[in-house]
């Protein structure tokens, strides 16, 4: 099949699924709805594989399949096509989105079967995938932005899926509004780039990127990319706009897995990688990205230490891992960023689905303090969760090890890296190992704290099969990008990942100056892995063997613990500094300006119109003699005009 046809089917299949489920959204037939939705995504997945195969068959320089369905906007010299492109980067993205997406759809059939709104749920999920595919395939920033907004909408709808609970509805609004701030910056970034380069087509933009580094902070490219990055901090939950993602856990758990871990939140990273030639010429922007990424990685990891809601722990972990991806692209390791994006999609989707399985088994209980010892009730969930756990804390040879280690290595060795960035990354990795082990220990290991009325049970196959597949991917997913030092050690395993992305990644111009030895790489790898192992071991002992040890540590740190436990009071600060003043200013505007000026002015106008109306009405009262009088008056006026004038 031609690639145009494949791309069309890839895009339209989830849309058809959305329409089929959307028109009968009141139905509670979960099997039908789930089959339609999962089938639609599976078709997309098949198309994605076919496109990938076509891409592999081409020589590396020509790996670019484009299609333009119609001219979307044409105003003067400003032209935007509804054009889509499959190249090395977007091919990986569509494989992740549709592949992980179909597994999560499958899982949802089991997870949502008791829900009344199941058809609506699947319709939203398909619509999300449609928008996500537009986001990654769009060939211009504007097309990407359509998908960007579309996934934001679906995220809002799915976070607030159980909108009868006002806290959940508020979480949806928080996500939407926080994203709007980023989106505004994204639009400004598009304006700046269009003003500078006269196009929004990403391929052309990359071709037009200047060759000289822009050292000024106020250069067009620096400002434009910085604005795009602020847009990315909204969508990808980075400082300062990360606050919505933990609250987004109010949505159904498969949604958290699909949207808030594997796909949508990585859109910011993807956007930066796609425009990497532009970002490379703006070192200042890159520096900001690296610092924000590293800071987010550490900050979110510390918050993750104290959370007690299983999904909240995973949410902060996601924020932290996204920080790693931004750290990677910030130091110019775009390939490593994409690599971590993929492995993270596997193991984080796995762990979210695993937590869904746990929540399902515990009858909607999410507090890990009320779990423990679930290992014997949920053997499959536990086993797959262990794989995800080993992957995220970076144990070789699991997927997370290769990608995280590559990021840490580049953070140190890249010309735009810095030892401080590496330290931040290593601290983040240590903390990650601690809180993930804590999560494992409190949920699956140790003694049971399960309420007597709850009888945990393993989930049905429809839910455990996706877990097993993702578990397998969490193990082997990293093998496509084995670092050179290891591959040389164990025999020449080609680094497929690096070769694959090479044609689209711009090399840093200052790359050749500094040389780093393999010994250094081994040393850093050893340090980060052993740090992670030690902290994982510490957490294991603290939470399974020594009861009460955790409380002692918490008490020892007193005020620090309180600060972290309250998430650094960031939400409170936002309320105090931005939201409350805004709300009170709006209220004042309402009470004074609106009521006293605008309302009164409109009331005056209505009074005038009403007075005029009642006067005219009194003329037409059914009294024939009065009508006759009007006729006479009219004749008199007309006659006197004719006679006098």
């Amino acid at each position: 099949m031609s690639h145009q046809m494949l791309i069309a089917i890839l895009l339209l299949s989830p849309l058809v699924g959305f329409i089929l489920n959307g028109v009968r959204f009141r139905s509670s037939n979960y099997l039908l709805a789930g089959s339609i939705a999962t089938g639609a995504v599976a078709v997309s997945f098949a198309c994605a594989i076919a496109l990938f195969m076509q891409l592999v068959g081409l020589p590396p320089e020509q790996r670019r399949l484009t299609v333009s369905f119609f001219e979307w906007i044409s105003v003067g010299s400003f032209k935007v096509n509804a054009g889509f492109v499959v190249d090395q980067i977007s091919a990986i993205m569509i494989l992740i989105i549709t592949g992980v997406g179909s597994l999560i759809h499958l899982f949802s059939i089991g997870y949502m079967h008791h829900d009344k709104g199941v058809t609506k749920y699947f319709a939203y999920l398909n619509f999300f995938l449609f928008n996500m595919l537009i986001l990654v395939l769009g060939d211009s920033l504007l097309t990407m932005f359509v998908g960007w907004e579309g996934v934001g909408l679906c995220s809002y709808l799915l976070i607030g899926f159980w909108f009868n609970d006002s806290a959940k509805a508020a979480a949806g609004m928080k996500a939407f509004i926080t994203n709007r701030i980023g989106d505004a910056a994204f639009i400004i970034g598009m304006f700046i780039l269009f003003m500078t380069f006269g196009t929004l087509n990403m391929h052309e933009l990359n071709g037009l990127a200047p060759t000289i580094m822009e050292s000024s902070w106020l250069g067009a490219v620096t400002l434009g990319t910085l604005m795009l990055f602020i847009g990315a901090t909204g969508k990808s939950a980075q400082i300062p706009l990360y606050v919505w993602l933990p609250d987004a856990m109010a949505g159904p758990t498969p949604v958290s897995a699909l949207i808030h871990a594997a796909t949508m939140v990585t859109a910011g990273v993807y956007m930066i990688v796609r425009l990497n030639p532009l970002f490379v010429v703006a070192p200042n922007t890159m520096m900001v990205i690296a610092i924000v990424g590293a800071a987010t990685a550490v900050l979110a990891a510390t918050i993750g230490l104290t959370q007690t809601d299983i999904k909240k722990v995973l949410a902060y972990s996601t924020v932290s891992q996204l920080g790693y991806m931004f750290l990677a692209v910030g130091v110019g390791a775009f390939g490593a960023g994409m690599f971590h994006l993929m492995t993270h999609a596997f193991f984080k989707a796995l762990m979210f689905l695993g937590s869904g399985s746990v929540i399902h088994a515990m009858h909607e209980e999410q507090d890990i303090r009320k779990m423990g010892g679930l290992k014997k009730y949920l053997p499959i969930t536990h086993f797959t969760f262990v794989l995800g756990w080993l992957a995220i804390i970076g144990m070789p040879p699991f997927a997370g090890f290769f990608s995280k280690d590559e990021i840490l290595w580049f953070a140190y060795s890249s010309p735009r890296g810095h030892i401080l960035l590496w330290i931040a990354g290593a601290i983040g990795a240590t903390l990650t190992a601690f809180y993930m082990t804590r999560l494992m220990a409190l949920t699956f290991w140790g003694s049971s704290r399960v309420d007597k009325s709850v009888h945990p049970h393993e989930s049905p196959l429809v839910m455990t099969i996706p877990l097993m597949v993702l578990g397998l991917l969490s193990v082997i997913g990293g093998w496509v990008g084995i670092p050179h030092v290891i591959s040389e050690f164990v025999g020449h395993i080609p680094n497929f990942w690096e070769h694959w992305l090479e044609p689209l990644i711009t090399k840093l111009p200052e790359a050749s100056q500094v040389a780093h030895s393999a010994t250094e790489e081994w040393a850093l790898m050893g340090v980060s892995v052993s740090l992670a192992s030690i902290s994982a071991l510490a957490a294991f002992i603290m939470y399974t063997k020594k009861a009460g040890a955790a409380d002692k540590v918490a008490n020892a740190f007193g005020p620090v613990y309180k600060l972290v436990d309250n998430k650094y009071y960031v939400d409170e600060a936002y309320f105090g500094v931005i939201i409350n003043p805004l709300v009170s200013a709006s209220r004042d505007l309402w009470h004074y300006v609106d009521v006293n000026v605008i309302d009164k002015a409109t009331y005056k106008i209505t009074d005038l119109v009403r007075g005029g109306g009642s006067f005219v009405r009194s003329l037409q009262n059914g009294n024939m003699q009065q009508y006759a009088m009007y006729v006479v008056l009219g004749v008199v006026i007309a006659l006197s005009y004719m006679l006098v004038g």
Partner: protein
Amino acid sequence: MPSTSFLTDISINHYLILSAILFSIGMAGVLLRRNIIVLFMSIELMLNAVNISFVTFSHYFDKVDGQVMVFFVMTIAAAEAAVGLALAVSIFKRFKEVNIRFFEHLKG
């Protein structure tokens, strides 16, 4: 031109003034009176004032058209009176009075 006295020499103006006076009286009756019978009488007065004008001009221009028109007007006046009086009778039967305001009840 020989001098003429307004009082002794009857000219076209006299007829037209008479017509205007009669028409105005009739119009005042239509506008001001409430009794339907009086109203019809007033309408009749206005029609006949117009008839006087027709006849005057017919005579003055030596053409018969105006007099033909007078017959039309009289015919229509008769028909109108027949219909109008029938209405007046039914109003009287209903309300024991022939005041114009009872016609307001016709608007439904």
